[in-house]
C-alpha cells in the first residue's frame, strides 16, 4: 500500500516549462503547489558550467540529458499490420528528464503558430471547400483562436526575453520581420541576435528568389535582460552548444533562467525530484481526480492527494499517464470511437545542404540563430493548384559546428579515410544546411495506445505509437523543399545536396522532438480529450498541458505555442476555475 501524504491544492506532474509557468502563476495566486519530477535537480551552476557542458560525446551522442529508454520508452509500428517493437535507443526524438525538462536542452526556436493554424479545418473548408480534405485526414479546429492567445504568446516571449523583430505589429507589416505572422501587440523584448555569415547569405539568396526572409525568433538573449519576474539573463556568447546542452551563460530561456529563481523561493511551492508518477487516481465516480501515485528513488510508493491535478510532463508522457490511469475512452481506429490517443502528429522535415565558397565559421552559433522564410508555411500561399494541406518554413540555422555530429559533406564522400578527411577539411567551414520544417496533419490511423507486450521499469505497459507519413505531407515536403532548393541555388554554392525524406517514417534517425496530439483540445468532447481551456472533459479537476493537446501539428517548433496555451489555461484556472471549480465548458 502506498503511504498517503498530506494533501496539496495543486499537483503538477513533471517539472519542465509548463509546470514552471503554472507553478509560478498558481503559487503567486496563493495556492499550495507541489511539483513531482521524475529526474534530478539541476541548475546553471554547477550542472551546466563550462567547459564540462560543452561535451558533445556526453550529451549529444550519449544522451545524458534525455529520457533513459531503460526506464521508459515507447513501442513503435508504422501501421496496424505490423507488431510494434520497443525503441531501445532514442532516435527520432529526444524527450528530456530532470528539472526544466526538455526546456533545458532545446534550441530556443520560439515561434507562434499562424492564426489560421488554430482554425485548421474551418479555414481549409472556407477557402478550398470540404472536399479538399483527403479521406482519413482528421484535422480539426483548436477551440481557441490566435486572437485569444495573443496576450499569452506575448507573455511567454517577454518571460523568455525572445530576440527577434516584429513582422506584423498590430496589423502593420514591417520591413524586417516575418510579414506572414499573426498580428502581435508589441515587438519582441530583445532585438535579433547578431547575424552569422550563413544567415546573411541565406537572406540575400531568398530575396533574390523572391521570398521574404527575416531573423527567426530566438529565445537566446541578444543582450542582458531582466524579465517581468525580475529574473536576469546574460547575453548569448554564440558558443554553439544549445541543442542537447544546458546553457552555461544564463542566455538560453529555460525554466531555470526565467522562472525558478522566483518560484523556488516561494514558501507555498515545493518540488520533489526523483519521483515518478505512475497513476492519476480518480474517486469512485470517475469524475474527480483525487491525486497521484508516485514511486520515489528508493522504490517506495506514495499517494499524493490534491484538489487540482495538472499533467505537465512531456506530450507523450501525459498521454501515457492518462492511458495507464484509465481516464477517458481510448481511441479505436477500427470504430473511430474514443478520443484518448487520437490525432497523434509529428513534423515533416527535410533539408538542402549547401557547400559554398565563403568561410562561414559555423562554430559561432546559437540554437535559434537563423534566417527563415515563411512564404510557404501554413496557408500563406494558395494551395489550390497543389492539392495538399499545410506547409513549412525554410531556414538556415547557424546552431553550431560541433565536431562529431554537426557537419555536412558533399554527396558521394567516403565515410572514412583520407578522402573523408580531405573533404572535411575543405567543407567544415564552408557548408551550411537549409532546413524545411513542415507540418503534419492528423489522420485516423495515427494514434497512441498501450502496448500489449512490452513494459517499463515500473512494470507498466509501454505506450505504443502507430504512425506513418501520408501522401499529403510528402507532397507538401517535396513542394517546399523545391523552394529551398531555389534558395540554395541563389546562394551560388560549389554544390548542394537535397535530402528529401524517403520511404516510411523511421524512428531511428533523429528528426525533431515535436511529438503532438493524443490528448487533443477542442470544442467537441467526441473528438477531443480536453476543452479549450485544457481541462479534461470527463474530470474537471484534471488539466493537461503540452503539445499533446495540438489537434494536428503546424509547420513550426511547438514551444512558443505550448507556452502560450499554458498561460491561457493558467488564466482560466485563476480567474474562473478557482472561483467555481467545475467544468469551464459544458459538454
Amino acid at each position, binding site marked *: 500500500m502506498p503511504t498517503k501524504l498530506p494533501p496539496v491544492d495543486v499537483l503538477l506532474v513533471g517539472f519542465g516549462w509548463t509546470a514552471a509557468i503554472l507553478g509560478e502563476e498558481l503559487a503567486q495566486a496563493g495556492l499550495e503547489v507541489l511539483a513531482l519530477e521524475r529526474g534530478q535537480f539541476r541548475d*546553471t*551552476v*554547477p550542472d551546466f*558550467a*563550462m567547459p564540462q557542458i560543452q561535451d558533445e560525446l556526453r550529451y549529444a551522442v550519449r544522451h545524458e540529458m534525455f529520457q533513459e529508454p531503460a526506464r521508459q520508452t515507447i513501442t513503435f509500428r508504422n501501421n496496424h499490420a505490423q507488431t510494434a517493437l520497443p525503441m531501445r535507443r532514442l532516435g527520432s526524438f529526444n524527450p528530456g528528464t530532470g528539472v526544466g525538462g526538455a526546456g533545458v536542452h532545446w534550441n530556443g526556436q520560439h515561434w507562434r503558430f499562424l492564426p489560421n493554424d488554430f482554425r485548421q479545418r474551418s479555414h481549409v473548408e472556407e477557402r478550398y471547400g470540404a472536399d479538399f480534405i483527403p479521406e482519413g485526414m482528421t484535422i480539426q479546429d483548436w477551440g481557441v483562436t490566435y486572437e485569444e492567445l495573443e496576450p499569452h504568446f506575448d507573455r511567454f516571449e517577454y518571460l523568455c526575453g525572445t530576440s527577434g523583430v516584429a513582422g506584423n505589429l498590430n496589423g502593420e507589416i514591417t520591413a524586417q520581420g516575418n510579414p506572414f505572422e499573426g498580428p502581435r501587440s508589441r515587438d519582441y523584448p530583445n532585438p535579433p541576435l547578431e547575424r552569422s555569415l550563413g544567415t546573411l547569405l541565406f537572406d540575400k539568396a531568398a530575396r533574390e528568389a523572391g521570398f521574404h526572409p527575416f531573423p527567426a525568433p530566438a529565445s537566446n538573449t541578444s543582450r*542582458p535582460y*531582466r524579465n517581468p*519576474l*525580475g*529574473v*536576469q*539573463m*546574460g*547575453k548569448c*556568447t554564440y*558558443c554553439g552548444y544549445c541543442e542537447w546542452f544546458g546553457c*552555461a*551563460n*544564463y542566455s538560453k530561456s529555460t525554466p531555470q*533562467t526565467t522562472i525558478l*529563481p*522566483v518560484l523556488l*523561493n516561494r514558501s507555498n511551492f515545493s518540488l520533489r525530484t526523483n519521483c515518478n508518477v505512475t497513476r492519476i487516481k480518480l474517486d469512485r465516480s470517475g469524475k474527480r481526480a483525487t491525486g497521484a501515485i508516485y514511486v520515489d528513488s528508493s522504490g517506495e510508493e506514495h499517494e499524493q492527494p490534491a484538489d487540482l491535478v495538472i499533467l505537465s510532463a512531456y506530450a507523450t508522457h501525459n498521454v501515457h499517464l492518462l492511458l495507464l490511469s484509465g481516464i477517458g475512452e481510448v481511441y479505436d481506429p477500427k470504430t473511430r470511437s474514443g478520443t484518448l490517443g487520437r490525432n497523434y502528429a509529428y513534423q515533416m522535415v527535410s533539408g538542402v545542404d549547401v557547400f559554398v565558397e565563403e568561410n562561414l565559421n559555423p562554430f559561432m552559433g546559437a540554437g535559434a540563430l537563423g534566417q527563415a522564410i515563411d512564404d510557404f508555411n501554413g496557408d500563406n500561399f494558395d494551395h489550390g493548384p497543389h492539392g495538399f494541406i499545410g506547409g513549412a518554413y525554410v531556414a538556415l540555422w547557424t546552431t553550431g559546428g560541433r565536431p562529431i555530429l554537426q557537419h555536412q559533406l558533399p554527396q558521394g564522400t567516403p565515410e572514412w579515410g583520407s578522402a573523408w578527411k580531405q573533404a572535411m577539411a575543405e567543407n567544415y567551414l564552408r557548408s551550411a544546411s537549409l532546413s524545411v520544417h513542415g507540418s503534419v496533419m492528423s489522420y485516423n490511423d495515427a494514434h497512441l495506445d498501450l502496448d500489449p507486450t512490452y513494459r517499463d521499469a515500473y512494470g507498466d505497459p509501454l505506450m505504443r505509437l502507430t504512425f506513418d507519413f501520408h501522401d499529403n505531407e510528402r507532397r507538401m515536403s517535396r513542394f517546399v523543399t523545391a523552394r529551398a532548393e531555389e534558395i540554395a541555388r541563389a546562394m551560388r554554392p560549389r554544390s548542394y545536396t537535397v535530402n528529401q525524406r524517403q520511404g516510411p517514417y523511421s524512428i531511428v534517425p533523429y528528426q525533431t522532438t515535436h511529438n503532438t496530439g493524443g490528448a487533443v483540445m477542442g470544442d467537441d468532447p467526441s473528438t477531443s480529450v480536453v476543452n479549450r481551456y485544457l481541462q479534461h472533459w470527463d474530470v474537471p479537476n484534471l488539466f493537461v498541458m503540452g503539445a499533446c493537446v495540438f489537434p494536428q501539428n503546424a509547420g513550426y517548433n511547438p514551444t512558443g505555442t505550448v507556452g502560450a496555451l499554458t498561460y491561457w489555461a493558467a488564466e482560466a484556472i485563476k480567474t474562473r476555475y478557482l472561483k467555481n471549480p467545475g467544468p469551464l465548458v459544458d459538454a
Partner: protein
Amino acid sequence: MRAGLTVLAGAAVLTGTAAGLAQEAGFSDIERGRYLARVGDCVACHTAEGGEPFAGNRPIPTPFGTLYSANITPDRETGIGGWSDAEFERAMTQGMAPGGKRLYPAFPYPFFTKATRDDIRAIKAWLDTLEPVRQEVDPPELPWPLSWRALLAGWNALFFEEGVFTPVPGKSAEWNRGAYLVEGLGHCAACHSPKNLAGAVELDEAFEGGFGEGWFAPDLTGDLREGLGEWSVEDIVEYLKTGSNRFSSAGGPMAEVVERSTQHLTREDLRAMAVYLEDLPAAEEVAEPGDVRDLDELLMAEGEALFVDNCTGCHLMSGEGQEGVFPALAGSSVLQQEEPHSAIQIVLGGAEKPSTEAKPTPLAMPALGWKLDDDEVAALLTYLRNAFGNSASPVEHSTVTDVRSIIEEREGTAALASE
C-alpha cells in the same frame, strides 16, 4: 509586516481595553526587534548548517580556534529562555553572560554596545517569541590559556569601550542614523577592518578592509581603487538592497549578509548607512589611476591568455561585464584590494550572487580551481589586477596555495556535514 500591524490595530480598537493597547505596544517592540535582528544578521552566526534558526552551535572559525555560537532561542536550559532583560542587555553591551561568564569577542559585543538599550530590549522581546529549541552548544576549542575566560577582562581593558553611540554634532540626522547602524548592530567593521594580534579591530584603520572566513572583506573607505570612492549613495543602496550594482555583485560571506540582512532593511536605513560610508575618508593617499607597476611581461601574457579562455564569455573582452548581470572586472575594487584573497576565492571556488527579492536570480560563477593550478591563478589575477586600467600588486603563488587550502578545508567540512 504592515498588514499585520493594521490588523492588530483594528483588534485593539475592537476590544477597546487597556490590555489591548498594551499588547499593541508589545507588538510594535517585537516587530522592531525582528527588524533590528535583521540589521545585526543574528541568524547568520546563530544557525548551524541544516540546524534550526537561532539555535546556535554553528562553528565560528577564528585565528585562535573554533568557537560555537550560542543558542539564542528561549529554551530555558540550552538557550536564553532563563535570561532576564537586564542579563541579555549585559551580554550585548558588556560581553558578559549570566553568572559573570565572559563571552569571547567573536560575539560582536564591542559593536552591539553602541545600540540603544531600547533597541536591545526590542531584540530580546522578539527573540522571546521564537519557538524554544533544545540545542546544546559545544564548548570552545581553544588552546590554554585562551580557554581561560578570565583573560577576557584584560582584553576588554585594552580593546573594549562600553557605551551607547552618541550622535556627532554637526552631522545630519541621516548620517548619524547610518553611523549608528554601521558602527553598532550592523557591525560592518568586524569584517571590513584589519585586526590586531588579539583579534581586535585596529581602530585607526577601521573600514580599510580585513580578513574574515578566508575572504578579504574590501575597503569601504573613499579610496578610488579599493574602496567606495567611485560609488554613489544610490550605488551602495542598490548593492545592499539587491545584491549587485553597476560595479559589483556580492559574493562569498557578503552574499549571505545581503540575502539575510541588508535586503530586508528599509531604503531609508540603507540610505543612511550609505551616507555614512560615503563620508569615510580614504585611508591613505588615493592611488593615482593608471599606476604602472613593474610586471613580468610573460606572466601578464599568460594571464591574458587565461582571461580570454576562461572569463570573456560573461565578463567580455573589454572586462566591462554585462550591466545588471555579470560584474565588471575593469575598475573592480574586489580585484584591486591590497590583499587578493577574495579574488582568489572567487576564481578557485566560484561565487554566487545572493537571491534577493529585487533580483532573484542567484547568478553564479563556476569554480575554476579544478582546472587552473596555483601558478595559473596567480598569473590570471596578476593580469586582471593590472588590465583595463586596474592597478594592484602581483599575486603570489603562495597566496593562492593558502587560499586553496582554506577552501579545501571548508569544503571538506561541508562534505562531512552533509553526510
